[in-house]
């Protein structure tokens, strides 16, 4: 069954109903959209667009990071007959302006946290689509959409000159989808992890449409740092990943770093790795079982595209037992032209052409393509369209050849071929390949500079790198006309890269005069590689080369970092190194080596923030119930005479977890709330306690013991978790997200401390951060009378009346944490 338009695809996927389609892992929570929800959201998005005054054929720019909302925006456009123009959110602003001037889009759907070029075009934030798709609407008569209807205009990540917009019709997309669907292996479990931008056709087709067509799932991550990727792999049981070669290398390096942290890990790994080629392929997963287990246990496929995959890298992953399928394509072909398959596979080749895709080699070696997946041309650019085709065949700009079995090999970009004065063609890729094999070389870029083959080298470690030796060794591997005749070391942390991590050769070439003149300059912008050490983080924030970050350098005096930059350092240490460093500890005088120590250090023994997950287990829960029913509640009723609860009816329609918020008057508050809430909430409630309370140093040993006992009692009997005001706040926020994902409710006292006077203190703004990130209803609570029964500092209980009032659940949306906090505070006050 071949869907002839992508919309037919949408109809068929409705058949998958409640099955999960898209998973969204934010920093705090995990959201799941079923096929039903996805289809419904796409329709609502389409209605919203039409209501904004957009007409079929109008263009909408989508410039946002990957997420289910991105997918809904795309499907909504397609449903409404509106042309989607996806743009990588990391592309430079000049590029965006050029695209806008060509497409004259009438709306930009964009991500919230990104700089905007200030175009006079209305925009809509992608996370506001949440509200749009909740609104139930009647489906209007959808505009007629046929095979030749323009579905998307995809701009190729050009590095120079005017960007060209590839027009892709519904037929183009559907033809490529059905071709891929017919050849890719069938697997019962089909969960993909999305790592490439959806603005690129490789991710859209192979990473989105193929899994959707088969009822699989796609997992989207809010941030793409390697630690988040590995965590997603572990927790989500991923089957397949679509990646570019550079990303495969980065992941491999991250894996090796993780292995290196285990004592004896690296030598063991090398031993197994050397055995692997002798082990039959299906058994390799057993050989490396601990690694596969850590990566989720189901991860089997790596689909590589976007750039040439080094054979060594391919073999390295295959030795571990992964099936690596390298493919080849271009945006103009929607995009896949050829790919390797498990039973038709050659290392170094890009596989056989897909069904219905015809590939021919021109006399000069250029690869030509023809088929229903090939674009009709470039948007509003007839000259470019004319030059792109010869006799109806698309000119790919790549040079290649077939072997005897019909496997295609790509030699390199026609445009980047270096033609020596002797008239010999040299592919920079070949020279780079030889250079990259040298120890110490992380990556290289070969260009024609000042009449010579010139290598720009990016080392692993600038301090110990010997470029001369690397070049000499590489030259031994190359032919006489491929000899590198000049070289330099790239002084910045990385090469400028395209969104798909290909080195921007033209930009490297353009920087050479600046390097030659010895000007330090600013590193050309591009996509940044992950940072793995404290010094790299500091170098990145300070805008300096890593070598200039010495271990005795002070943040303020030597590196010139003000308090804003020190915040950036703390954030990057957390984002890139997963290390939570106290922002307050980073002062102008703090030295680099102190930070390195802070990052390495285990949390001090008095730091009780280790999250205790076992307190949510079944057995402990039963013990807890027993304690409450037999001990706590009767005792409470003795002391709270009478005990009134009002407003339970407000919780009647509430399904799913909520964020309970209450004023704070006494140690008895949490217990009273537990007593007051209906059992289905009470049994899965985790109150938050102010972490710093447990950390104030107490000199008297008895005092220390009492406090420690209080901590143990609180966490086991009340399922309390610690919520710091400062350091570790985000870790607690994430734990709260975990609780909510698991169906637990969270109780927070936003005043931060019990009132001394009986009056409510202002709510701390952290509650706004919680409400905004947890995305669950907020239930306001008010406790009365407990302040009189057990005030702060009191040594005796004074029995008396007590009441808990339960307010109506609030569904809050605001872009200001302070505003959210105020709304919550008002709700509690009004009770």
């Amino acid at each position, binding site marked *: 069954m071949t869907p002839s338009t992508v919309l037919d695809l949408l109809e068929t996927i409705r058949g998958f109903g409640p099955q999960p389609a898209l998973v969204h892992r934010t920093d705090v929570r995990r959201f799941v959209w079923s096929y039903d929800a996805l289809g419904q959201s796409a329709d609502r998005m389409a209605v919203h667009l039409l209501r904004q005054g957009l007409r079929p054929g109008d263009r909408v720019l989508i410039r946002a990071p990957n997420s289910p909302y991105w997918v809904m925006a795309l499907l909504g456009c397609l449903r409404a007959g509106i042309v989607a123009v996806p743009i990588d959110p990391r592309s430079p602003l000049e590029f965006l302006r050029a695209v806008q001037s060509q497409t004259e889009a009438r709306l930009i759907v964009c991500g919230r946290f990104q700089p905007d070029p200030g175009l006079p075009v209305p925009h809509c934030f992608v996370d506001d689509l949440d509200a749009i798709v909740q609104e139930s609407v009647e489906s209007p008569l959808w505009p007629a959409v046929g095979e030749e209807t323009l579905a998307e205009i995809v701009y190729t990540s050009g590095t120079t000159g005017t960007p060209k917009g590839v027009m892709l019709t519904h037929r183009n997309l559907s033809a490529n989808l059905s071709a891929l669907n017919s050849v890719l292996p069938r697997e019962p479990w089909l969960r993909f992890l999305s790592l490439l931008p959806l603005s690129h056709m490789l991710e859209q087709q192979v990473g989105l449409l193929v899994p959707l067509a088969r009822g699989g799932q796609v997992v989207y991550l*809010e941030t793409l740092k390697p630690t988040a990727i590995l965590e997603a792999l572990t927790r989500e049981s991923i089957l397949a990943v679509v990646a570019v070669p550079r990303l495969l290398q980065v992941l491999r390096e991250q894996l090796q770093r993780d292995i290196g942290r285990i004592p004896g890990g690296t030598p063991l790994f090398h031993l197994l790795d050397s055995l692997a080629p002798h082990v039959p392929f299906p058994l390799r997963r057993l050989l490396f079982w601990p690694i596969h287990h850590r990566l989720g246990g189901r991860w089997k496929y790596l689909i590589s595209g976007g750039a040439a995959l080094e054979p060594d890298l391919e073999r390295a992953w295959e030795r571990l037992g992964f099936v690596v399928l390298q493919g080849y394509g271009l945006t103009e072909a929607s995009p896949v032209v050829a790919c390797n398959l498990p039973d038709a596979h050659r290392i170094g080749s890009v596989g056989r052409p897909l069904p219905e895709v015809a590939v021919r080699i021109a006399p000069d070696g250029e690869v030509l393509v023809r088929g229903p997946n090939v674009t009709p041309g470039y948007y509003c650019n007839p000259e470019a369209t004319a030059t792109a085709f010869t006799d109806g065949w698309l000119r790919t700009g790549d040079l290649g050849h077939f072997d005897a079995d019909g496997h295609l090999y790509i030699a390199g970009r026609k445009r980047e071929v270096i033609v020596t004065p002797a008239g010999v063609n040299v592919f920079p890729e070949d020279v780079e390949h030889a250079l990259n094999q040298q120890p110490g070389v992380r990556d290289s870029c070969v260009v024609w500079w000042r009449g010579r083959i010139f290598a720009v080298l990016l080392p692993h470690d600038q301090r110990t790198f010997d470029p001369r030796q690397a070049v000499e060794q590489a030259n031994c591997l190359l032919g006489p006309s491929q000899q590198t005749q000049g070289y330099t070391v790239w002084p910045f942390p990385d090469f400028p890269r395209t969104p798909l991590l290909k080195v921007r050769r033209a930009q490297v070439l353009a920087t050479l005069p600046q390097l030659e003149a010895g000007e330090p300059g600013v590193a050309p912008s591009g996509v940044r590689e992950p940072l793995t050490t404290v010094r790299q983080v500091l170098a990145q924030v300070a805008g300096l080369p890593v070598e200039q970050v010495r271990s005795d350098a002070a943040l303020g005096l030597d590196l010139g970092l003000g308090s*804003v930059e020190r915040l950036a350092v*703390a954030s*990057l240490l957390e984002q890139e190194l997963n290390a939570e460093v106290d922002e307050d500890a980073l002062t102008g005088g703090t030295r680099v080596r102190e930070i390195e120590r802070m990052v390495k250090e285990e949390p001090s023994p008095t730091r009780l923030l280790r999250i205790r997950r076992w307190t949510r287990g079944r057995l402990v829960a039963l013990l807890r119930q027993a304690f409450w029913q037999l001990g706590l509640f009767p005792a409470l009723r003795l002391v709270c005479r009478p005990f009134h609860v009002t407003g339970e009816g407000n919780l009647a329609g509430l399904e799913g977890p909520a964020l309970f918020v209450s004023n704070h008057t006494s140690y008895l508050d949490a217990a009273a709330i537990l007593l007051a809430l209906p059992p289905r909430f009470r049994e899965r409630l985790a109150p938050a306690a102010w972490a710093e309370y447990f950390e104030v140093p107490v000199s008297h040993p008895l005092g220390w013991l009492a406090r420690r006992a209080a901590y143990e009692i609180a966490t086991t009997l009340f399922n309390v978790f610690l919520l710091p005001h400062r350091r570790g706040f985000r870790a607690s926020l994430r734990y709260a997200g975990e609780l909510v994902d698991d169906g637990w409710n969270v109780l927070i006292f936003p005043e931060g401390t019990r009132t001394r006077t009986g009056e409510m203190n202002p709510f701390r703004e952290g509650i706004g*951060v919680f409400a905004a990130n947890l995305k669950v209803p907020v239930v306001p609570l008010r406790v009365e009378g407990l302040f009189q029964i057990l005030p702060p500092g009191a040594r005796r209980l004074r029995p008396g009346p007590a009441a808990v009032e339960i307010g109506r659940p609030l569904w809050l949306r605001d*872009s*200001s*944490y302070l505003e959210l906090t105020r709304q919550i505070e008002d709700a509690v006050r009004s009770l």
Partner: protein
Amino acid sequence: MLAARQRIGIDLVSIPRAARLTKERAFLERAFHPSEVADTRIEHLAGVLAAKEAFFKAVGIGPDWLAVEVIMAASGRPSLRLGGSLGHLAIQDLDLSISHEGDYAVAAVVLLLGEEPEP
């Protein structure tokens, strides 16, 4: 001679530097409220950073970035909103001004402290 309870704070932010920092998601999440990022021009973001820093200097405390929010009125006049964790500061009145030109954004905060609250 300033009245005893008046304070001033001023800060200058390099816009290209701010541009580099605001590329990082983690930094944006820690330094800004989503409402502050709605206007995504880099001069605006640099101005917000300068305003917050100027406030902390005026008060004389270490930075607590999400405890303050810079609000731009339709007229373009900025103001500062303070969160609950700063409630103890007893600030009676406060004014903020932001400017930018070329590669720099600058902000100044003037505030009037109230009487010390009773302990």
